[in-house]
């Protein structure tokens, strides 16, 4: 043992910028969460502020408007997601719709089951996984990466879903300890599958807890050692963080209104104003929260 480097465990708590330093233009990134919940919004806003370009974005299986925002801001070149929308708040992501119609983004068309088959293939280091549903549909025509083939055992017709490998994944969770042991409140949707398909994973959390607290219920540890943990109280806002706060529908609607203007009338000014006020303007994630306002944030407490 070298006395100059004592054998101690390193803390994995990092700043947002340190996590973003792992991203390069053109990479494939993964974003966690589910429709209106649990997106790593500190990271999403950070990616936009840094001005990344040409990213392939693997959204959650049901992507919300966090992916729409990345499209609106010109960060995403290609979208891998079976759905982009905000439920009743926006049945179709307005920027997703506009950018797809205008040829500004490429969509890797697939359904949820194909999405998980693709992520699993990456996690398993196989070039593809087979899937049955989709035979007889337009998927292989819409997405030429999906190939119809005869299975080598029974000769049945299946679809081969290619591996989707993620360079860097970003997730939002409830807590982590210093060492990247991440736990959710609730089940974390499909985040485990995104983690499993990623070379590196950074997780923003509502709070950092002691290792003892993690060890009190280790079965809840969903990610046993993220590459870095970003402190992010209210970090999923305006989306919900299970057990911490519910969706800020008023704020989401504000975004939807701005993005819809761009989609419907090609007027980018309202989106630019939204980006300026909430993404580009704040000097850091806490200033974003200040602009939203503590009074507003505290209305989102759960029962």
């Amino acid at each position: 043992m070298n006395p100059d480097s004592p054998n101690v465990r390193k803390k994995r708590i990092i700043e947002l910028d340190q996590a973003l330093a792992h991203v390069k233009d053109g990479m494939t990134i993964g974003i966690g969460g589910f429709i209106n919940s649990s997106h790593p919004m500190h990271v999403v806003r950070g990616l936009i502020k840094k001005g990344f370009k040409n990213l392939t974005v693997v959204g959650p299986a049901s992507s919300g408007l966090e992916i729409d925002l990345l499209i609106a801001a010109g960060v995403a070149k290609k979208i891998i997601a079976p759905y982009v929308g905000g439920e009743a708040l926006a049945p179709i992501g307005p920027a997703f719709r506009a950018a797809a119609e205008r040829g500004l983004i490429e969509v890797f068309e697939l359904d949820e089951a194909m999405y998980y088959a693709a992520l699993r293939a990456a996690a398993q280091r196989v070039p593809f996984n087979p899937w049955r549903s989709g035979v007889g549909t337009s998927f292989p025509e819409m997405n030429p990466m999906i190939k119809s083939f005869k299975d080598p055992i029974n000769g049945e017709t299946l679809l081969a879903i290619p591996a989707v490998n993620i360079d860097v994944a970003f997730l939002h969770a409830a807590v982590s300890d210093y060492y990247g042991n991440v736990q959710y409140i609730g089940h974390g949707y499909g985040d485990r599958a995104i983690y499993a398909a990623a070379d590196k994973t950074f997780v923003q959390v509502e709070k950092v807890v002691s290792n003892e607290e993690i060890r009190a219920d280790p079965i809840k540890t969903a990610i046993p050692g993220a590459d870095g943990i970003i402190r992010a109280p209210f970090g999923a806002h305006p989306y919900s963080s299970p057990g911490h706060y519910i969706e800020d529908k008023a704020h989401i609607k504000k975004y939807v209104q701005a993005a819809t203007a761009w989609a419907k009338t090609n007027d980018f000014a309202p989106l630019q104003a939204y980006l300026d006020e909430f993404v580009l303007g704040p000097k850091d994630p806490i200033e974003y929260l200040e602009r939203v306002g503590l009074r507003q944030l505290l209305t989102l407490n759960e029962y």
Partner: protein
Amino acid sequence: MNTITMQATRKEIMATVLARDLVDGEWVEVGANLPVPRAGVLLAHLLWGANMSVMVAMTKANVLNEPVIEEFELITDHRATRWAEAYYLHNDLVENMKFRHRGVFFAGALQIDPFGNSNLIGIGKDYKALKFRGPGAIGVCNATVMNSRFHLVVNSHDPRIFVPKCDFISALGWGQGGEDARTKLGLPGGGPRYVVTPLCVMDFEPGSKRMRLKSLHPGVDIEEVKKNTGFELIIPAKVPTTEPPSAEELKVLRERIDVQGALRQ
């Protein structure tokens, strides 16, 4: 006016049609932003399907004895998890298919053709230059194959939805028609059973598997359906009126399931 003596709305009728198809013991999910199927599922569960597995907010929910089943606008609203007996990891839900043989699914669509094939991708002949981009297939492609059957449910009956040919098929119905349209592709599941709209219920003629008018909601006539369907429907000699909810069904719908009145707007 007392809500119970008020006549059933179209949406309440639609929910009741869906409910009556459900059998105790089946597995059903209450999806996002789908108040009509939600109400149908809960109606069956509370009245005759105590052993149905009802998925709410990705949990297996125990709501059977809840006096009022609170409605949440968003599927991610964590408050709905208070009824949970179990969580379904989203990837497990989509990858473990065995339990789906008792499953029933409800699908929406941008376009539906005469064989119940449907499209959630977009409108336009060229995929690379869509005139209208839809939300994506979400889990519908898979769920319409792996469950025992599914119903197409739309909020308007419109010739832009009921088209002779879908621009893209994201969920297979009866393909080009015929009883074997799905089995010859190796697909399990019973395919689409009903198409439920604010005007009527349609099913698929045995043999040809072409869409057929099954019943008209009270106050709707055949011409209204024909006018709003972009292809020729099979119309039987006698078309009954859709049976509206009974007094008991309506009471449960209004007092336990849909207190906020989403189906009465």
